[in-house]
């Protein structure tokens, strides 16, 4: 696979240029993602063609594969946005906001409940960006500022990526590396994944009201994290496939008793920079609010249908097996660069199972919501109250098209970098200069990089798990299990900073163009989680060697 790829500083810097260009344009120059993405794509093309001995034929194959990868994500973006339009135009979000106040009037509790607990639950069953696309509008509905309505679920769902979507990331890892001790690797992965989980809880509380937020939220964070992280650790020993889904469901159920606790039932009186209304009411007199068009249960109907459809479609093995028989995919020829880097023929490449894809579950919930809301007359009642509201289709197209362009460009860039050897250059360059302990620290950063590029823990592991295994077997003092665990954890953390995920979230709440502002916050979270993960990786690596 590696061929004669030259591992030197010159080629390493060249391979880094597409990512650097993307970061500079998005974060420093503040270009929109739909403008910066294609520039990153062109940069990857040019470097592949002129410096990595890649032919136009190879670039074309890689580009088509990249667009196909993007279609996977766009099949979540478009249905999620449609669900948002169908739900919002019926007045469901306004009703949800009013109805949820009866459940708990503590905004910090609600932000953690939706952005962390519910997002993690959704990641356990569906994934592919669904937790961000679904919870961002919910957070917006309860009064979270648009930027933070995307930041919070990005941070909150990240830990659940590895064993979420019924452990697709883990299953893919087992496909690409032949592990000496899969149980030990899975267990170490669960230990490391607890870090981004607990860091996400505390980060969200910190964002909400700095130290006061943490002082108020810490019991809830510890309880939920014990269920998420501890539950996953236990479930790994039983069945890795359900190791995120079951703790995610238990944590969701735990929200009810938590909401009965006075600490989280009543308003906390905290000033929050992430809420549209900075000051929380103290529970006294409140402004009279217009009676919502529907009740709380009705406003949650699309999300209940979504969860039920996902559990039936992906969680019941005989049904999942029957539905996953239908697969669509296209064949691509083998390619080889001038450096001898060979990409095997694909027959078909990454087949797409439409009936088990979360996009289908979103479409089902959208259809059910539209039929019920229309039959109940909610669209008519809402349009009478809200003048000048955009139609469902115009709202969908105006947000989904720019998001689709950027997601497509990101994924083409990623696939061209992969097939031309730029991705391998980056990873092998790090491993060539880093001593074992330094590599152990940075191994999760490689996973992070993979997820940043592809928006997928699974893709990150497919790209880099073989490299981590090679380095662990060739460098003295590195444990294979620990390096794969660190790679997998980095792949999970990287989902919080993946531009395609950011664009997905922003598009569903119709705030495209704020990618840089979101990334500035999530990069801090990802950096913190990666540093702690790096430190614990060194410890785990040492313990594994002492014990083994």
């Amino acid at each position, binding site marked *: 696979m590696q061929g004669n790829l030259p591992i030197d500083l010159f080629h390493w810097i060249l391979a880094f240029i597409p990512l650097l260009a993307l970061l500079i344009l998005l974060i420093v120059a503040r270009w929109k993602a739909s*403008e910066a993405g294609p520039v990153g794509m062109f940069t990857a093309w040019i470097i592949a063609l002129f410096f990595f001995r890649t032919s136009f034929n190879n670039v*074309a194959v890689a580009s088509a594969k990249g667009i196909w990868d993007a279609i996977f994500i766009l099949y979540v973006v478009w249905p999620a946005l449609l669900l948002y339009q169908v739900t919002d135009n019926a007045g469901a979000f306004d009703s949800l906001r009013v109805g949820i106040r009866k459940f708990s009037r503590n905004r910090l509790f609600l932000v953690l409940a939706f952005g962390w607990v519910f997002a993690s639950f959704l990641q356990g069953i569906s994934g592919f960006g669904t937790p961000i696309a679904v919870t961002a509008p919910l957070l917006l509905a309860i009064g979270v500022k648009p930027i933070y309505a995307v930041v919070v679920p990005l941070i909150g769902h990240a830990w659940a990526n590895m064993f979420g979507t019924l452990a697709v990331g883990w299953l893919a890892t087992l496909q690409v590396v032949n592990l000496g001790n899969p149980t030990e690797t899975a267990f170490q992965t669960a230990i490391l994944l607890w870090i981004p989980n607990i860091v996400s809880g505390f980060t969200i509380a910190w964002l909400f009201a700095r130290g006061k937020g943490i002082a108020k939220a810490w019991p809830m964070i510890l309880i939920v994290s014990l269920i998420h992280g501890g539950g996953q650790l236990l479930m790994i020993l039983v069945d890795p496939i359900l190791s995120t889904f079951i703790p995610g469901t238990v944590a969701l159920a735990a929200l009810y008793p938590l909401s009965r606790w006075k600490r989280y039932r009543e308003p906390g009186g905290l000033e929050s920079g992430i809420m549209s209304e900075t000051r929380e009411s103290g529970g006294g007199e409140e402004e009279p609010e217009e009676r919502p068009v529907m009740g709380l249960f009705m406003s949650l109907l699309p999300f209940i249908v979504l969860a039920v459809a996902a559990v039936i479609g992906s969680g019941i093995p005989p049904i999942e097996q029957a539905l996953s028989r239908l697969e669509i995919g*296209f064949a691509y020829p083998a390619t080889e660069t001038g450096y001898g880097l060979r990409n095997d023929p694909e027959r078909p490449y990454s087949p797409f199972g439409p009936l088990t894809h979360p996009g289908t579950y979103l479409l089902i919930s959208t259809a059910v919501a539209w039929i019920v809301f229309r039959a109940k007359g909610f669209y008519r009642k809402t349009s009478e109250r809200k003048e000048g509201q955009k139609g469902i289709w*115009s709202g969908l197209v105006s947000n989904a098209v720019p998001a*689709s362009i950027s997601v497509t460009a990101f994924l*083409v860039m990623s696939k061209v970098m992969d097939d031309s050897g730029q991705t391998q250059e980056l990873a092998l360059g790090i491993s060539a200069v880093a001593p074992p302990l330094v590599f152990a620290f940075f191994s999760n950063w490689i996973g992070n990089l993979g997820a940043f590029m592809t928006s997928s823990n699974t893709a990150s592991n497919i790209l880099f798990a073989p490299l981590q295994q090679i380095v662990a077997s060739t460098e003295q003092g590195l444990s294979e299990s620990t390096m794969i665990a660190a790679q997998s954890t980095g792949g999970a953390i990287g989902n919080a900073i993946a531009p395609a995920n950011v664009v997905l979230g922003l598009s569903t709440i119709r705030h495209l163009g704020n990618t840089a502002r979101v990334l500035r916050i999530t990069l801090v979270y990802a950096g913190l989680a990666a540093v702690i993960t790096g430190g614990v990786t060194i410890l785990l690596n040492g313990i594994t060697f002492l014990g083994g």
Partner: protein
Amino acid sequence: MNRWMILAFLLMLAAFVLITMGFAWSTEPLWWAGLAALALGGLIPAVRRFIPKHGENES
């Protein structure tokens, strides 16, 4: 929604169809056309940045 952005996205989708068909049928001009469509689709949003525009939705 600017129609140029819709055109850019449609070109990207067309690129996928053309490249895939080009390799499936071993027809070189088809995948070249696909690559050109992808290049054009990518150029439109980047070039539009430098052209004064009205009523842009993506703020």
